[in-house]
């Protein structure tokens, strides 16, 4: 884990660019779906403890809607698209015309629609990354969960868990114009994937 602590700013910038390109394309896809402008925050690349990662979405007990894809191929990792339940409802309302009322859980139809939205966004995130790095990255079929953030995110930390108590996270937030839909992309590449990403982008391996 020590190695990640010593990533020089330059390497962090490269990873930020990775998040920027991926989420930028996903934001464009969302903007096309909604037919509205979608803004994106500057990506954050941070080495965080497991607790801090849950805190990024409001704490381990916070209820979130998450679409999870495992990335397979040259640079495996975990990709989460995280929304608040309200934002998910608002998305469903605007994209598929599902009425906003109704508390609690999503029915099968709504879940399937959310999964598909997640699939489109994550697909555009990954395909732009794959193009940019020339690495093969293929997503698994997306899975949806609405539950405590800690329970969900811990799933993406298992690979890092074998190496230490922190994970390197590429975090991008985007906001739709009137802020009704706010979402976060978390890309957590497996620890071994970083050297492959750097190599593919021409960052010297021993550059630290």
């Amino acid at each position, binding site marked *: 884990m020590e190695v990640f602590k010593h990533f020089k700013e330059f390497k962090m910038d490269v990873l930020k660019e990775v998040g920027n390109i991926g989420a930028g394309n996903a934001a464009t896809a969302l903007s096309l779906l909604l037919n509205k402008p979608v803004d994106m925050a500057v990506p954050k690349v941070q080495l965080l403890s*497991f607790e801090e990662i849950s805190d990024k979405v409001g704490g381990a*007990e916070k209820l979130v809607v998450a679409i999870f894809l495992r990335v397979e191929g040259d640079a495996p990792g975990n990709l989460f698209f995280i929304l608040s339940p309200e934002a998910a409802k608002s998305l469903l309302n605007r994209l598929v015309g599902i009425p906003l009322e109704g508390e609690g859980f999503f029915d099968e139809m709504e879940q399937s629609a959310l999964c598909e939205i997640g699939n489109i966004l994550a697909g555009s995130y990954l395909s732009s990354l794959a193009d940019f790095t020339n690495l093969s990255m293929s997503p698994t*079929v997306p899975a949806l969960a*609405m539950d*405590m953030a800690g*329970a969900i995110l811990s799933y993406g930390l298992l690979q890092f868990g*074998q190496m230490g*108590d922190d994970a390197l996270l590429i975090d991008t937030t985007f906001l739709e114009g009137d802020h009704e839909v706010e979402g976060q992309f978390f890309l957590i590449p497996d620890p071994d994937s970083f050297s492959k990403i750097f190599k593919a982008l021409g960052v010297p391996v021993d550059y630290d």
Partner: protein
Amino acid sequence: MIEEQSIVKVGMADLNVVQRSGIIRTVGLGSCIGLTMYDPQLKIAGMAHVMLPSSDIAREGQLNIAKYADTALPALLEKLLHLGASPSRIVAKMAGGSQMFAFAGTGDTMRIGPRNIESCKLKLAELHIPLIAEDTGGNYGRTIELDASSGILYIRSVQTGVKEM
């Protein structure tokens, strides 16, 4: 659930103990296991938030023993014994080990919940600690609290609310 009193929080890959009137809790268990050990006579309660089944797969330099089932359970037992708990009185409860996401093709990583459950049970048997209650598996997250004064384990999930055992 219960009024705020002295609450000891156990983070992910962490373990701790409380005595007499305290409460020990861990939040957002997914595939992880919240394992508790309790001495009813001295009211000593311990909890571990186990993340992975076995330290064999560890690649870290400084091993965090609270993270792996095979190292966390003996360490937790040791902590209880240190406070005077008697090995013959200690009982265990556990919760968690769910499979948050259902995939068609599942590798070993995806089955981590069931593997954590198996590994914890195996280790408990090895340590001769009876498992008197469990709420494991499923596909949802859990927050658990063990009340040291009563030994009751409260389990909260988003869909089913609070249950005690």
